[in-house]
């Protein structure tokens, strides 16, 4: 069935896809390439590879790290992301279980408020949330994790609740008859079944928290040591008119590396998770 004509057209398609792949990778290669050039050569000759004269070794990386404290920021980004995701998976799965299994005004009201919160844009609560966080001393990494638990609760509860509905009641009833408390039933029986959804929720929330700029920028601010990666990158560019482009390139590269590693190691889960989130949300 495979004719010569379709073989030829497959070749054309392959070349087209290859060009597109290069277009996708090019911006990343561009900053990687320029991160190794002396800062004065970047604007004069941005597209060539570094040579003897323009090659700056790791100077840009050293300069950038000294100026920005990006390593600290990577640490805090990791801390806030991991703790927030643990909070979210643990607490919102419990809440979703409760609001699905218990039919009361309280649980109905909760469920609809969670769904409603998914639609509301951040700008709506930006100012008031920041001042509330100030009054209750949440302007620190742990406080950020609590805010993320609240802010991403909508999507997470919604995803978990959708899955809990499909679990047959008999399993839980059997556990209860055997004398399990609701907590034992949830963690012993229900949570293991929820694992695929837990992975999806963890990935979606991790991507949001890791990349989020405005919440940490407003709540933690720029004058503390708890800055996250996007805040540091914004400061490096936004603060001084006479910017060090070499350092900027190097810091952009360092900000992207953790994401690429994460992506290449958990690619399958990430793609599945993001698609599941898109289809349900």
């Amino acid at each position, binding site marked *: 069935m495979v004719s010569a004509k379709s073989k030829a057209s497959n070749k054309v398609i392959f070349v087209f896809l290859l060009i597109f792949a290069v277009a996708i990778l090019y911006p990343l290669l561009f900053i990687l390439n320029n991160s190794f050039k002396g800062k004065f050569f970047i604007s004069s000759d941005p597209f060539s590879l570094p040579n003897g004269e323009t090659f700056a070794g790791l100077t840009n990386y050293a300069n950038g790290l000294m100026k920005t404290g990006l390593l600290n920021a990577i640490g805090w980004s990791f801390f806030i992301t991991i703790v927030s995701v643990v909070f979210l998976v643990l607490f919102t799965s419990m809440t979703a279980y409760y609001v699905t299994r218990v039919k009361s005004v309280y649980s109905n009201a909760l469920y609809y408020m969670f769904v409603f919160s998914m639609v509301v844009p951040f700008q709506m609560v930006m100012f008031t*949330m920041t001042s*509330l966080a100030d009054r209750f001393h949440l302007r620190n990494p742990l406080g950020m994790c609590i805010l993320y638990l609240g802010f991403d609760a909508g999507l997470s509860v919604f995803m978990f609740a959708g899955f809990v509905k499909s679990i047959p009641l008999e399993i839980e009833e059997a556990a209860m008859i055997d004398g399990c408390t*609701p907590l034992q039933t949830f963690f012993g029986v229900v949570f293991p079944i929820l694992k695929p959804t837990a992975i999806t929720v963890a990935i979606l929330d991790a991507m949001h928290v890791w990349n989020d*700029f*405005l919440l940490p920028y407003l709540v933690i601010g720029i004058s503390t040591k708890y800055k996250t990666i996007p805040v540091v990158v914004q400061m490096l560019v936004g603060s001084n008119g006479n910017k060090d482009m070499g350092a900027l390139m190097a810091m952009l590269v360092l900000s992207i590396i953790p994401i690429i590693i994460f992506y290449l190691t958990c690619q399958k889960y990430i793609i599945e998770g993001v698609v599941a989130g898109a289809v349900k949300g």
Partner: protein
Amino acid sequence: MEKTLKKYFLIFTLPTVIAFAFAFLIPFVQGVYLSFCKFTTVSNATWVGLKNYQDAFSGGQGFMSALGFTASFTVVSVITINLLAFTIALLLTRKIKGTNVFRTVFFMPNLIGGIVLGYTWQQMINAVLYKYETTIVANAKFGFWGLVLLMNWQMVGYMMIIYIAGLQNVPTELIEAAKIDGATPWQTLIKVKVPMVMSSITICMFLTLSNSFKLFDQNKALTDGAPMKKTQMLALNIYETFYGRTGYEGVGQAKAVVFFIIVVAIALVQLSFTRSKEVEQ
């Protein structure tokens, strides 16, 4: 079982509910109230009725021009992203060599955060424009098409994955039958494949629509509204109204409420679209 679980409502729901109250519920209610007030902090508000809303829409606030820019940006990026993503999804479902590698590469930009992405593209675009002795902030057209390019680069891979999932669910018998009936590849595409993936198309249209409409980080990083706020989108306009100068917090909050209402309207249209599809099937 429901009765026993009901007694555990504190353990199951309290952590999420407290965080949700801090991050969303209280700020949301306060936000709606404050949009009718003049204030500089949450505690010194005085009621001014609809004045903030009048001010928001009056000239000099840039809200209407931001709305115009956001709307045209959204239309152009929704069309370009979906056309490109659908085309590539078609090509990748033809069993071409290297399909998996292409998928991996195309999806990757979706994971990188808006701030980091925005500065990466700013450096790239400026590197080209330096050759013509200009920069991206010199002309609003550069900013507009720069944003469209960036948004395409980031979202095409994501939408492509959703389209691929849809295309793979089209029964092969259907396509075979169309071929036997003498349909050209183009007819098969328009009359068989497109109607069969209508639900994926709806999902992708609304995902790109709401992501483009609510865009903030990329806009802030790429142009920050320059020149003369001409490339300022709604979310950035609201942010600038809050934090750009004091005395306009109420107007900012009123704009945020309007923004929220538009976003909810879009979501409701999406919901009715999805519902009507479900009835048909």
